[in-house]
Structure formats: structure tokens, C-alpha cells
């Protein structure tokens, strides 16, 4: 085991998978950094530090720096995937989904179905998402709800460096299109990462914290906040299961339902606004399938129905937090 930052775990995984399988190809804006400049390729190596060195090692045919053309990037990933390659495309900010959604939603996600099951498109789209860096309304969003709603996609949201490695490896080796969401506020998060081969199957949640009283469901950065809340509550004698979904599609229904059957109380934490999102998805899953176990109405802790604001004070008010999560846990315990 080595202690790595999440961004390092991503970079190492890309290295390892590219080394292992020559069909793996990465592409994205400024992932090489310095193309067409005096400093030359690798002068920068990606603004997130998740691709530095790949070009030097694997060359420009497999490490493709692209112009600012997200539709072309994702479309190219689709075409690479259809013709025997394993593309890993990077979308620098998940907010840019707006300029490339067709190639995700109507193309790669649907190839297999539209073409009668005769096609495989093993493409991975890495998207850097989330609030917390005061990047404002167009550089801070968490569109996992939108992506999870799309049949044909798998959607992954790692919350630790180890999971980043295990899940990204699985994503690259998976035969279906996978959206891999990396939270920018988790990039510097450190953790032990298993060395060598390490895969984590999709659709298997992780129990990030264990307790008997309330089930908290979260993904990505929200797992960190939920765990913090659970730790604080534990000191007050309140036990929480924190279920880290790892993948929102497929969804580990069993893990959620098992926990709720035990606790009878549910708090869902989601970084997105409240309407038609992952929070409502989990709440309705539980009320449909574990209705009889519920002792209180499920609680949702989400961001408000607003864009992401810029100023520190506003963004703090916008995001779920350990405090807000703990409050929701208390509310559900206090019910009736």
C-alpha cells in the first residue's frame, strides 16, 4: 500500500492501464499541455495533474491533445470505442456536458440498443465535477443525476484514492460506456491505495461508516461530509451507516435497502439541486422497496434549487455540509 492523493491514483491507473493494454487511448484538452508551443509537449501535462507523463511514455497517437471541441472529443471517443479501442476522454469540467451531451446521451449510450445489441463501445468519459473551489455557476456543477438518468451509461463517483484506482481500472476494462466523475475538491485527498492489480466491481457500495440508527447514503465528495457527520454523531451515541454508492448506475439497491431495513431511517446527501436528482432517486427507491421498514420520512440534504454561487460565504451556504447532514439525522430521529 502506498499513500497517494486521489489525482495521483488516477494518473497511476491511466499509466498502468495504458501499459497493460495498447488499445487504451486517452484524449482531451490540454492533457498533454504545451502542444504547439516553444515549451513543447508535456510543458504542463494537464491542468489537473492526472495526465502528466503519459505523452512522453505512450506518444501522441495514444495521448491525444485536442482543441476546445468537447463534442468532437466525445464523438471521437465513441468512434474509437466502436472500432476496437478503449478511449478515456477527459472533460475538463463536468459543466461542459452542455456542449457535448448529444455524443454522450444520443450516441455512445444508445449505440448498443439502437444497433440491436451487436455493438460494444467501451469508452470512458472522465469528468471533473463539483463545487468547493469558488469556481462559480459554470465550473462547479455535479451533473451525475442527469447522467444517471440516461439508460446505456454507467456512472461512477469515487470518494477515496483507493476507490479511484479500483473503479477507474474497472471502468477502463468495462465493455459499456462509463462516465467517471472526479470531484475537484477530492483531488488532493490522500489515502492508502493498493498496489498492483486492483479492481472494484460496479454496483457494489462501500460501507464508509457503520451504525444502527440511521442510514446515510452519499457519493463522491458527499461521502466525506457524511462520514464526518457520522463520526460527530457517534460521539453523541448516534450510530449511522454511511453508504458510499461508488456507482450510481448500476445502483447497489441491496446495500441501501439492507441498511434501511436495519435502521428504519434514511438521510440522502446530494451535492446537486433537489429536483429530479440522485437524492429523490434514492428516496423513492427506499419508499418503494423498504416502505415497511421506515420509521420516519426520508430526509434529503441537497444543495438548493439555485445555480452555484461564487462568493465563499454563498458557496458554503449552497453546499451540503457535515453540520447540515447531522441536523437531518437528528430530524429523522426526532420524528413523531
Amino acid at each position: 500500500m502506498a499513500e497517494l492523493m486521489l489525482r495521483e491514483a488516477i494518473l497511476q491507473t491511466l499509466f498502468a492501464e495504458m501499459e497493460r493494454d495498447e488499445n487504451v487511448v486517452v484524449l482531451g484538452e490540454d492533457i498533454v499541455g504545451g502542444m504547439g508551443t516553444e515549451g513543447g509537449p508535456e510543458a504542463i501535462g494537464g491542468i489537473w495533474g492526472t495526465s502528466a507523463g503519459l505523452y512522453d511514455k505512450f506518444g501522441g497517437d495514444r495521448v491525444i491533445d485536442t482543441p476546445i471541441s468537447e463534442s468532437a472529443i466525445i464523438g471521437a471517443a465513441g468512434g474509437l470505442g466502436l472500432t476496437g479501442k478503449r478511449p478515456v476522454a477527459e472533460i475538463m469540467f463536468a459543466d461542459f456536458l452542455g456542449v457535448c451531451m448529444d455524443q454522450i446521451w444520443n450516441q455512445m449510450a444508445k449505440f448498443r440498443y439502437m444497433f440491436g445489441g451487436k455493438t460494444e463501445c467501451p469508452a470512458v468519459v472522465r469528468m471533473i465535477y463539483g463545487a468547493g473551489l469558488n469556481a462559480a455557476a459554470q465550473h462547479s456543477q455535479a451533473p451525475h443525476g442527469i447522467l444517471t438518468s440516461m439508460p446505456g451509461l454507467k456512472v461512477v463517483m469515487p470518494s477515496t484514492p483507493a476507490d479511484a484506482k479500483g473503479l477507474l481500472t474497472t471502468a477502463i476494462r468495462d465493455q459499456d460506456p462509463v462516465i467517471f466523475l472526479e470531484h475537484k475538491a477530492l483531488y488532493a485527498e490522500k489515502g492508502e491505495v493498493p498496489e498492483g492489480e486492483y479492481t472494484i466491481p460496479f454496483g457494489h457500495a462501500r460501507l464508509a461508516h457503520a451504525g444502527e440508527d440511521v442510514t446515510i447514503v452519499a457519493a463522491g465528495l458527499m461521502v466525506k461530509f457524511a462520514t464526518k457527520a457520522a463520526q460527530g454523531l457517534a460521539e453523541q451515541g448516534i450510530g449511522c451507516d454511511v453508504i458510499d454508492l461508488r456507482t450510481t448506475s448500476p445502483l447497489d439497491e441491496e446495500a441501501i435497502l439492507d441498511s434501511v431495513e436495519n435502521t428504519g431511517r434514511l438521510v440522502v446527501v446530494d451535492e446537486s439541486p433537489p429536483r429530479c436528482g440522485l437524492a429523490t432517486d434514492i428516496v423513492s427507491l427506499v419508499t418503494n422497496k423498504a416502505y415497511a421498514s421506515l420509521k420516519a420520512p426520508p430526509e434529503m440534504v441537497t444543495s438548493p434549487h439555485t445555480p452555484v454561487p461564487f462568493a465563499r460565504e454563498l458557496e458554503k451556504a449552497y453546499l451540503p455540509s457535515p453540520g447540515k447532514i447531522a441536523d437531518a439525522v437528528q430530524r429523522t430521529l426526532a420524528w413523531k
Partner: protein
Amino acid sequence: MQISEDALKKAYRQMKTIRMFEERLHDEIMTGEIAGFTHLYAGQEAVAVGVCEHLDFNDTIASTHRGHGHCIAKGCDVKGMMLEIYGRADGICKGKGGSMHIADIEKGMLGANGIVGGGPPIVVGAALAAKLYGDGRLAVAFSGDGACNQGTTFEAMNLAVVTNAPAIFAFENNHYSEHTGVAYAVGSEDIAGRAESFGMKAWRVDGCDFFKVYETMGEVVDHVRAGKGPAAVEFDTERFFGHFEGDPQNYRGEGEIARLRKERDCITIFREHAAKNKLVSKKDLDAIDKEVSDLIDKSVEESRAAAPPKAEDVLTDVYIDYI
């Protein structure tokens, strides 16, 4: 340009198959048995065939909403296509895709596409893969004059130039996008010129003359296979039917279709050229007509009789594996 008699016969058969497929569909759609939106390719056959006769199965193409011609030209099974358009379980996409989503990856046919401009970015990916395979293969994006206004098409052209990808952008200018004329919708009216402005070589050719298309495409394909970068071709071509079946076509000029059928029919032009230059005998071509006609008859017959998909099949083929 050299082209053998056999190759000519094959090309003619392909063109004629497309033509009869489409003419027949036009009739069959009237019966109400065929569901959905169908866009017929009749009139543009010389383009699809003139391009695809330069390709082999390693080369890939991506098509449009008007995809039947490209599919047939790239070798998709004609009966499987007809079954698909009829929405049958044995259709080439099991009845899940229909006219607008026919694909056959094994034949290098990466899909018709219901999204205008959907194909070109995909083709850049296929071309980048082709470059990695390193065996000279290439990828072709068919687009209409209307599609050349969609941002995705431009992004794809630029990305292809930047990455020196072996991609060909084949623009079929049939002068209409739906009911709108190219004179209105395409700012410059010069599609090849746009492609050139992205830094690639571009050709212009009469798309109703197979021989010209085939000759030009020889140059284009040589250029691209040689690693000299992507290329574009603008084909001047004609659409014989409406935008989709049901289109009243009141935007057409008086007698326009009759004139096009008379002066701009690629099948007639082929036959005249072949006769004049004694390349293939009329008898041989007539025999092909008969063969093709039988094939289409049989395809329609079988499609009519074929079983529809089962309701529960709606759930399959979304993922390879899920959980």
C-alpha cells in the same frame, strides 16, 4: 482511371439495389405497414457507391438519417435492412433501431444517425483508431448540406486536421435540408471552401455521375491513405423523393422532380456512359436489374411475413452487463 468490367457491374448492382430498395419502400410506406420516419436516398446512389467502392471492410463510414444508401453501399445485408425497417425481430438491429439507426460494425458501417451532425465526430474517432492500426485504413463521414451547419461537423473537421487523422468528410449537397434551400441555409454556399478553411484539401465533383465520383474518390482516398491528412469532398447531387415520406414538397420548383429524373438520374447517366464507352453491355445491366428486383421483392415479402419482436425484448441490449 481504370475500372474493371466486374467492378463496374458490382457498382451498378449496388446503385440499382439502393434505387429499387428506396422506390419500393416509397410504395410500401403508402400501405401504412411501415412505422416511423423514413428518409429515402434515391437520386444520390452514385455518391454512396462511388465512395464505398474504394473502401474495404476495415474502412469505416458513418451515415445520416438518410442512411439506406450508405448501408447498402458498405455491404449491409439488404434483407436484414428491410426487416429492420419493417420493425421485425430478425431485422439487422432486431427492430430496435429502424430506418434511422441501421448499423453493422463488422461491415465497417458505424450507423445511420438521427442527429444531424452526429456522425462526423464519431468518424474522427474511427480515423484516430485507423491511424493506430497503421495499415492505411480510413474513415468516411457522410453529411448533407444541412449538416454542414451543425457545430459538431466543424469541430470534427478541425480535430481531424489537428490530429492528421485519415478521415474523409463527404458532403452530399442535394440542395435541400428538409424544406430549406442550400442557398438560404449555408452562408457561403461553398461547402468545400469551408472545409478548406479548416486546413484540409477539398474536392468538388458532380455526384450524379458515378464515373466522376469514382475517379475523384480515387484521388481523395490515395491522399488520405498516404497519411497526407483528412480531406473533404462536396458532391453536387439530387434527392428524388421528399425529405421524409409524407413530405408534400411544395418547395420544389415546377416540374423539378421530372427534370431531375430525366437529366440527373445517376442510373441513366451510368448506363449511357457505359453504353457509349462500351464498358458493360445493356444485357448484363438488364440482368442485374432483374436480380436486384427479385432480391427486393423477396426482402419485402419476407419482411411482411416476419415475426415482430417480443415485448420483453424492450429490456435487452442496453448494456453488455449491468450489476
